[in-house]
């Protein structure tokens, strides 16, 4: 169950992080959600509908796969939590379906969302198609280019994809545009945020919807190795939802080492990075107090990562807190290291990972595991959407290798 020590408090904070730093216009929407989300999520009708969808529509539980070749390579026991096998190809669908069921119960007819890699956009467009709701997805212009297959999927699903043209034209800017849309359409619109970011109660709500990942890990590990707790849980961190879900039921089991992996882009010191916890400072972004990348004047700086899903200058407040109290450890991985991990997993295990997930895989070579240790890597998504990026990157770097 949810812990108290590491969980959000009644005021919506994780330690000093979180809260709801929103314009007054959004107060009613956020308050309505805050006052109702737990009650709705815990009601039998919601649970039945949600669990049925997760099982029969999404295909849960996702396998916990013992990656023997990878284990041999790193001389330990590695399991992959196969979120890539979910319907629509990533963990994002867990949250999108949960929130759309909530939106329906709150009587909202119009759904908006932001997306970076397009996985949350596709998941939301899918949920809207299923429920017959209008769907508008904000996506940075740069991401529209680099994740074209997902844009095509969203269009086919009947969603309207709106290009965010401001700033770095990536996830941060798509989120700004989604919030502006919400401000202009408060009465009709429900905003499905795609990660553990945004004003309270979003971070907690999204973490709860994703917590199915660690819930399944526990029972699957018990069955496979006779104990619920691995030695390590490793997950990539953009906003931090797949990591929050993979950590959730282990937060109180402090013998389980939790490792989050941020994208350092071209390298921490290059100015082209998205490793928020390493180079950021606490501040306010998208309605939440948390670490963010900013200059001395408090202007949010443009992040960079080859991976659209990790290309974000903030991080969910739960991770800022787990970082400060040292319950989780946060590492970072460059574009090149992640690409190396993509090729490695593909050729060793026959699984093409999403570029985001490859960041989690890339730390396997940086940690010193013992042979009898059990390591679970959350494989948050599949790589179909990234094929173009992979092909281009490999072509450009052919000679360097």
């Amino acid at each position, binding site marked *: 169950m949810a812990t108290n020590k590491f969980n959000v408090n009644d005021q919506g904070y994780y330690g000093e992080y979180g809260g709801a730093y929103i314009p007054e216009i959004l107060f009613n929407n956020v308050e309505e959600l805050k006052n109702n989300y737990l009650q709705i999520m815990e009601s039998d009708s919601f649970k039945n509908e949600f669990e049925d969808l997760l099982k029969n529509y999404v295909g849960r539980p996702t396998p916990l796969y013992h990656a023997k070749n990878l284990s041999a390579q790193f001389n330990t026991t590695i399991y992959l939590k196969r979120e890539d096998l979910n319907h629509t190809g990533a963990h994002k669908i867990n949250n999108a379906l949960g929130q759309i069921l909530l939106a329906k119960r709150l009587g909202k007819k119009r759904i908006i969302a932001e997306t970076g890699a397009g996985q949350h956009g596709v998941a939301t467009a899918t949920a809207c198609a299923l429920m017959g709701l209008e769907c508008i997805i904000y996506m940075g212009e740069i991401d529209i280019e680099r994740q074209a297959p997902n844009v095509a999927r969203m269009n086919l699903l009947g969603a309207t994809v709106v290009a965010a043209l401001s700033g770095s034209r990536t996830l941060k800017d798509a989120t700004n545009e989604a919030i502006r849309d919400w*401000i202009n359409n408060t009465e009709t619109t429900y905003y499905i945020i795609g990660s553990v970011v945004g004003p309270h109660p979003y971070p907690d709500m999204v973490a709860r919807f994703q917590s199915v990942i660690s819930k399944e890990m526990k029972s699957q590990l018990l069955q496979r190795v006779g104990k619920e707790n691995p030695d390590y849980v490793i997950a990539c961190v953009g906003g931090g939802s797949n990591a929050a879900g993979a950590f959730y039921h282990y937060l109180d089991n402090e013998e389980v080492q939790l490792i989050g992996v941020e994208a350092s882009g071209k390298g921490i010191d290059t100015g082209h990075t998205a490793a928020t916890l390493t180079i950021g400072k606490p501040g306010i972004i998208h309605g939440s107090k948390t670490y963010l990348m900013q200059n001395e004047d408090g202007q949010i700086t443009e992040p960079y990562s080859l991976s659209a899903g990790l290309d974000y200058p903030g991080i969910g407040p739960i991770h800022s807190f787990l970082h400060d109290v040292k319950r989780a450890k946060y590492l970072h991985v460059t574009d090149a290291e992640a690409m190396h991990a993509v090729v490695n997993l593909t050729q060793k295990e026959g699984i093409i990972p999403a570029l985001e997930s490859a960041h989690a895989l890339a730390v396997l070579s940086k940690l010193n595991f013992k042979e009898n240790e059990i390591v679970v890597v959350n494989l948050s998504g599949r790589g179909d959407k990234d094929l173009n990026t992979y092909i281009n990157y490999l072509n450009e770097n052919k000679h360097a290798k």
Partner: protein
Amino acid sequence: MKINMQNRIDHLFERKQKNILSIFLTAGYPNLTDTLPIIKILDTTEVDLLEIGIPFSDPIADGPIIQQSSMTALNNGTTLKVMFEQLKDLRKITQLPILLMGYLNSVMQYGVEPFYKNCHESGIDGVILPDLPLDEFDTVHKPLSEKYNIKVALIISPLTPVSRIKAIDERSSGFLYLVSSNSTTGNFKTNTINLNESLKHITSLPLKNKILIGFGIKGQKEFSEACEVANGAIIGSSFVNLLGNSTDLQKDIPEFISKIKEPIKTIQS
């Protein structure tokens, strides 16, 4: 420090309760050093109150006009530090009541106490921080703003429940900022501001503060409509738009202001 000197905003509302015109301008826009010269021109007009926007990289409550002006201002080199440096001469050029308006992250990174202290030292009378939660106002901003005699005008919207309006009015000082409709700034899609029942209902509540209506006040028509129900109104995007397009601010600013104020005077006389 004469911290207990009467605040210029209070002084304004003591003298005047109707047709108050407040103008918003983005600091450092269109050029880095334009802020004071623009204020100097405004000082010659019938403007009652000024709000200087602190440019922010990610202004989520703002529409395209203020977004774009903020970007330009930042590219010009505007920072809060530079602003306070420039504002040192503010009280040599005007005695208008002036507020700073900005996003909380700017204040947080500057340091909350240094921010209020510098506001006081520059002769700033109040601040508007749209993403400041009430509990953080109580614990952090209230004591510091009072220490430096800086008013904090809090925001309500047409959808704010009455009990919350009362709680906000209780805490607000200077005035209450009533957002005209649920929209980002500069949303002139609807031709008239949303003078629906809820807006009239709010302005008829027995509140401690005077009320100024902002967001979507484009020109004379919306201004006089707002003045029918509230103590006055705030013009932002429309004025910032003028700043971006004018080639003769010396002439255009007074013209802009008198177009807004003239008809009201005619009606009154």
